[in-house]
Structure formats: C-alpha cells, structure tokens
C-alpha cells in the first residue's frame, strides 16, 4: 500500500511546510539524523525552484516499498516555464548562477535516485527517492 | 592592472576616456564598451589614450575590430593623445597607417 501526501507550493512559507512533512515521514520510516537533514535540504531546493520560477506547483511524498528495501519518493512538479537545457542545469558549477534549476546537482547528490522531465512552456517534474539504509 | 572607461556624448561625438592599462585582462571590457558605440552609425568615436601608459597587442586587436565596425556602420574612429609606448606600438605594427591617430591632441579638445 502506498501512503501519499502532498504540499502545494504557492508562497515561501510553503517550503517550510514541505520540509516538515518530509522530515516527519523520514523520521517515521526510520531514516537516521543525517539522512533526515539531507532529505529536508533536497525538499528545500525542489520547493524553492517551484516558488521562485513557477506560478504554482506541488511536492508529493510517497512511500516506496520494494521487496527488500523501503524508500521515500519525493516528486516536485510545476506548470512553470520549463528548463530548456537540462544538461546545462545538471552541470556542476551552474548552482552559483542562482538561476532556475540551480541546486539540482545538489539534490541529485543528496538523494539516491533522481529523474527530471521538463518541457519548455509546460513545466517540470522531478522525481527523487531516498532509500532507508 | 585596471582600466577605467568613461563615455561622454557631446554634439555628434562619442568621447571615450581611458585610464589605466590595456592588456589581455582589460581588453574584453574595452571591447564591450567600444563596439556598441561604433555601431551607432554616423558618429565619431574619439578615444582619449592620454592616461593609458601601457597597452599590449591585445589592445591593438580591440581597436582593429572597432575600426572594422565603424567602417561597416559609416562611423569614424579617432585615437588621440597617445603616450610614448602606446604610440610606438601603433608605429611598429604599421597600424598608424590604417587608424586615424592624433598624438598631439590633448584630451580631445
């Protein structure tokens, strides 16, 4: 069975709400302190991107259960401008620009699984998973 | 090493006053400031080099680009008040024969 919860991101305050929900789920699932902090930081980056560059969007949490492992899946989706050059955004060094997508390489490092789909003018969906160690 | 670029517009002239050194580090900044002026068309761009005590060959490259651009847009480029070393560089390279250079004019008055 999958547990699903969602936080809408409209204002800066919602970033904190998303972090909090993510952290509580992570704690319940048995993530250690360091991983909890990593998950919260990843959520911050994802939610900030939505808040700064897309009119609206949401962060969705799902508990993934595989045969022998358990993980927290975080999906950030928006209907914003989209990212034209994904390889550019995923390059190290881009994060200093502070522009759209900055910090995504960091999210990839913080999480165990990372996937991004983006269409210019129609929005971006980023799917990430962290497995309980 | 630094270069200050001061642009003043008066009559049909664009006065550009440079202070400092023109080298590989400052040349891109000079190019960025100078090229748009040359593209305005029907104008004279006067570059005052009195306060430039050092220029290397990268600086020559910038002025050659600017010259080609002024020709394209029907403008004119003049370099004034060149100091010893800078003047010598234009003479050695033969670029004094294609650029409008006046080393006697002080401050473009």
């Amino acid at each position, binding site marked *: 069975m999958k547990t699903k919860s969602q936080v809408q991101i409209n204002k800066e305050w919602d970033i904190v709400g998303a972090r909090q929900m993510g952290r509580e789920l992570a704690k319940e699932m048995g993530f250690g302190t*360091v991983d909890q902090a990593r998950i919260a930081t990843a959520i911050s980056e994802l939610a900030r991107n939505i808040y700064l560059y897309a009119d609206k969007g949401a962060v969705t949490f799902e508990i993934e259960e595989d045969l022998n492992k358990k993980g927290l899946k975080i999906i950030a989706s928006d209907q914003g401008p989209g990212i034209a050059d994904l390889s550019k955004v995923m390059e190290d060094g881009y994060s200093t620009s502070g522009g759209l997508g900055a910090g995504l390489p960091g999210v990839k490092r913080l999480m165990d699984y990372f996937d991004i789909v983006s269409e210019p003018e129609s929005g971006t969906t980023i799917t990430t998973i962290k497995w309980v160690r | 090493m630094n270069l200050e670029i001061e642009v003043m517009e008066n009559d049909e002239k664009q006065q550009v006053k440079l202070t400092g050194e023109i080298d590989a580090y400052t040349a891109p900044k000079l190019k960025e400031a100078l090229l748009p002026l040359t593209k305005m068309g029907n104008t004279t761009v006067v570059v005052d080099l009195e306060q430039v005590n050092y220029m290397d060959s990268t600086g020559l490259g910038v002025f*050659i680009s600017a010259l080609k651009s002024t020709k394209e847009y029907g403008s004119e480029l003049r370099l004034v008040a060149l100091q010893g070393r800078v003047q010598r560089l234009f003479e050695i390279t033969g670029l004094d024969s294609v650029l409008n250079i006046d080393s006697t004019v002080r401050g473009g008055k």
Partner: protein
Amino acid sequence: MEPLDVKNYRSLLKKYIDSEDETSLYQADQFSKLSIQQNISPEEIINVHIQALQELYPNLPKEIDLSMNFLLETMISYGLAYQEFQSLREKQGEIESELSVAANMQDTLLSTTKPEISGFDIGAISVPAHQMNGDYHHFVIDSSKNLGIAIADVIGKGVPAALAMSMIKYSLDSFPDSLRTPDVILENLNRVVERNVDTSMFITMFYGLLNPESGLLQFSSAGHEPGFYYCAKSDEFHEIKTKGIVLGVSESATYEQFDIQMEVGDMVVLLTDGVTECRVGDRFIEPDEMLDVIRKYMHLPAQEAVDLVYRHFERLQDFHLRDDFTLIFLKK
C-alpha cells in the same frame, strides 16, 4: 585509523577531554585529512561526533543535543558545495591534460630544425608563458641553399593563437621556391590571414632570407617588433628599421624589402615583444638594458648565448613570464 568509526572517534574524543593533550588534536587533524581523502562530507563527521558524545555523556542537557542537530543541518549545504568543488576539480584536471596534449601536438606540428650552415652560428629559444605558445619561429633552406628565417607573434593568446600559427606554418610550406623573397612571402601570407582569421586576431612577422655565400640578409617585416643588428666593426647595435603593417588587417598590403650585408663578427638579433616588454617590478626594461644583457653573452656560441639571455630575463621576472619569449641569434 579508520575514518568515521564511531568507536575510534569516541575514544579519541574521550582521551582529549580527559587530558587536553596535543597528541589527540594531532590525531584529529589526521582523521580530518583521511576523511577528505575518502570523500566524507562534513555533516557525517558531525553525526559521528553527536553519536560519540551521546555515548560518552548520556545525560547531557537536551539543549546540547538540539544544538548539535542544528549544526548538522547547517553543514549539509557546505557538504554539497564541497562535493561540487571536488567534481569541478576533477573536470579541471581533465581539461588541463587535454590542453597539454594539444600543447604537445603544437610542438610537433610547429617544430623546426635549426640548420647547420657553414660560416654561421645560429641560436634559437622559444618559451611559452602558458601552455600554448603564441610565438613561432621557423627555419627553411630552399633549393638554392638560402636560409629562410621566420619569427612571428599571434595577437591573442592560448589555443586560438596556436591554431592560427599552424595555418601560417602550412601556408609557408606550400609557397614554391620562386616566391620565396621576404616581401612576396609576407604579401601572400597577409592574404591568407586576412581571409581566414577573425577580425580581432592578427599576426606580426619578420621574414629574413640569408645567402650564406655572400652574407646578404634580405628581410621584410609585417609589423613585427624590430630586431637588432650588431656591427662588429663599430661595436654597436642598431635597431633594424622596417615598415609594414601586421598580417590580417589590410587586404591589399604590400611589404618593403630591406637588406643588410653581414660581415665576420656581425650578429642579427630577432625577437618577440616578450623579450622587449620584460617587466621588472612596476617598470619595463629599457632597450639599452636589454642590449647590455645580450652583449654580456654574445661572445659565447649562439645557442648557449640565447639560453643564458633567457635565463637572465626569467630570473629578472621572478620566473614568471607574462608573455611568450622568443629570441634568435644569427652570428657570422
């Protein structure tokens, strides 16, 4: 020591807290270096610290625990920045090694053999300021046994300059012997450069043609830094006066040809602006100072002499060249 082993860290921490000794601090230093080598991020170290602390002092006030968690959270982004820095450093290493392959290739492409000509002694040195050399010199002997000497400087440095130089070299090689007088060579090269190279890039070149039998040196210059002629009879240096515009600016440029009759004991000095624009502290060396240095070594065999002049200037500039340095001595 195993990094991130909580047990080890705990005993190290305990030892320090009990004795406040320098040895433990030194071991902490080693621990930190080892962690960096193994890509351990700062938040993980803090986490080990928190665990060790809780095991050693189970009854610490809650405020301490919370503050340690707070510290851990604030270190996450530092950890990320550090990892990004590591990955950029690896990338930089890749770029540097690619560049050094390119520099080696340039050396091979632009290599020239210093010829042995009876009655003359030739020395040549060319040292790039960075990896790629924007200076170029070339010797060629034509079918009538005349020696052609080219010395050139590309305006604009680094990789683009090196690419432009390869073009020059292959154009030079492709001119037939019948077109080998300096004025004609420069006129032809000018057209090649004008057509092919970006407007802000141009090349200065001195081209000389020596008849070793007669000692007559004919030459033309395309805006190149003037060389010097040492006349043994008067024991004086003279600047080699030429006139001609740099290659690549004016489509229809032509070049005047000059000549010097070399006598025994005379010497021609060819150079690039990396030699004349040598900076000592805040000032440039004066031409006379440079000639004094040349005079000091010129009695030596030509190759030894140019090497020693280079060493002299290298030391004068604190072993940090600002510009590519090329120097040629041609002694009769």
